[in-house]
């Protein structure tokens, strides 16, 4: 498995030129959005960019253990970043979609709670399996003391491992990540849904009630696509495993925020163009 065999030594280095190019690209894409639709389209595009950034930033909080965690040799949930982010985000998106009729704020909060709840349940059951199934305590390998509870970590860490289980700070990080991811995914969905509901009746020459299934399905598909793009780009930023907000890799988040903003603006622009051309 490549994830175990070799981890790229990217480190927390920033590439200033690429960051500037990314920001310029973002401004150009927003400019195109303003050009094709100064009011409705640009508002939706900005919402999509904010949602994408929330996803990209939120994924950094989620404790991802990967294959080593499955063997109890690294802390975190034993699967990849993309899978966890997709799970949390889609759970949030589905939660938020039910509340879509009650306005933007309530829907986004509902989406955040859905994602956070999913991550809370996952983290709890993961620790349940670690402690009672595999017989290992939760211990972080990256910090000496849990930043939230202040519990000492090294005494519980087995030799030759990077820590194991899910320390309290990772649990909290997972829930925060789920909330941000779910809220971001829902924000993208709601923005696109409102846009499609407003424009599709004229585009398809049909009544609002008739096009509702199309609007819901298209917005949902675009939201899922955008979510996966952002989640995988963030996964590439993390390269493998992360323990949570206390992990040194967490400091890489500015790279991911720029990448997510540009990727969301690009994909969001395509999603907006479908009703404007």
């Amino acid at each position, binding site marked *: 498995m490549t994830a175990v065999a070799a981890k790229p030594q990217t480190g927390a280095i920033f590439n200033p030129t690429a960051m500037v190019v990314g920001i310029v690209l973002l401004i150009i894409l927003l400019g195109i959005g303003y050009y094709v639709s100064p009011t409705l389209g640009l508002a939706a595009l900005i919402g999509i960019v904010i949602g994408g950034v929330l996803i990209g930033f939120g994924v950094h909080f989620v404790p991802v253990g990967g294959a080593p965690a499955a063997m109890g040799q690294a802390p975190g949930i034993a699967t990849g970043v993309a899978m966890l982010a997709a799970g949390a985000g889609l759970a949030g998106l589905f939660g938020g979609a039910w509340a879509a009729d009650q306005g933007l704020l309530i829907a986004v909060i509902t989406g955040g709670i859905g994602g956070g709840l999913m991550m809370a349940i996952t983290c709890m059951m993961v620790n349940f399996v670690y402690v009672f199934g595999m017989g290992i305590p939760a211990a972080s390998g990256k910090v000496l003391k849990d930043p939230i509870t202040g519990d000492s970590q090294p005494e519980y860490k087995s030799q030759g491992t990077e820590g194991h289980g899910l320390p309290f700070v990772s649990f909290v990080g997972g829930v925060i990540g789920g909330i941000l991811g779910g809220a971001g995914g829902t924000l993208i969905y709601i923005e696109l849904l409102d846009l499609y509901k407003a424009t599709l009746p004229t585009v398809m020459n049909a009544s609002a009630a008739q096009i509702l299934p199309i609007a819901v399905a298209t917005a949902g598909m675009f939201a899922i696509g955008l979510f996966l793009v952002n989640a995988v780009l963030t996964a590439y930023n993390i390269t493998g495993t992360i323990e949570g907000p206390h992990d040194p890799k967490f400091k890489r988040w500015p790279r991911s925020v720029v990448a997510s903003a540009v990727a969301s603006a*690009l994909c969001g622009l395509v999603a907006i163009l479908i009703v404007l051309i």
Partner: protein
Amino acid sequence: MTVKVEVIEGGIPHQKIMIAGLIATIVCLYLSYLNVYTNTAYFSFFGGLAVVAALIWGSHTIKVLCSYGIGTGVPSAGMIAFGSGVIAMLLATKFGNAAPIVALILAAVIGLILGYLANEVLNMKIPVMIQSLTELAVVGALTLMGFAVLITGSFTFTGLTTGSVTLFGMISMPSYQVSFIGGGLVAVAFLLGSIAVQHPFNACLGPGWKQDRMLMLTAECGFLSMIVAAVMSFALISAGAAIISLLIALIGWVYTYCQYIELSKRDAYAWLDAKPIPDVEGH
């Protein structure tokens, strides 16, 4: 600074697979246009063949990309392929007959920018990253378009969003809910494709990796997905056309499955044809 874990030894070079996959996919997608000339849906199965061709290309691209330790697991490559692909494909359907070509170009642009973001902004520094993400986005878009053709017989926005409901067997009325996009079939196609494109390399990677075995598994996964999509197509196209798709998918799947088992036996050190646990009488 990256470590390349495996190298491609022998087999068909990637460029050849890419060109062959691209041409076969586009040609198959356009062959489905015979549906319009003959005013039937009997040629929808070409969409399924386009899916298989695109998947074979895509799984080899994933092999090229994931040979570098990207550290995120193979499935993430399938997810980003279809995440960017579905966005390009949905917009491309608006362009009528030019849809496959537009999907190709649009997906390539999206993939190129995503590749740049991953390689430069996120500092991955993997030599094949930009090319691979470009290819994967195109594969995602064309695979979804293939599924759309297989299920609805069309690749235009109108064809994918408009279906018809027959009431009491005689009155036919248009419905947006009974359609590829409105009915949510696009979500099923999305996951059928993304799992089929990432599974073969995930299953075959390792020191004993053989190109022909992995590509045969890809074809098998493609035909397996085609069976499911052909069953779903009964809802949207005529039963005769759906049966043709289903038969072709079944024949293709049985053939590729048998071939894959043969290749697995060839590459295995030893194998034992284990029988089911026998029922012992009187116990």
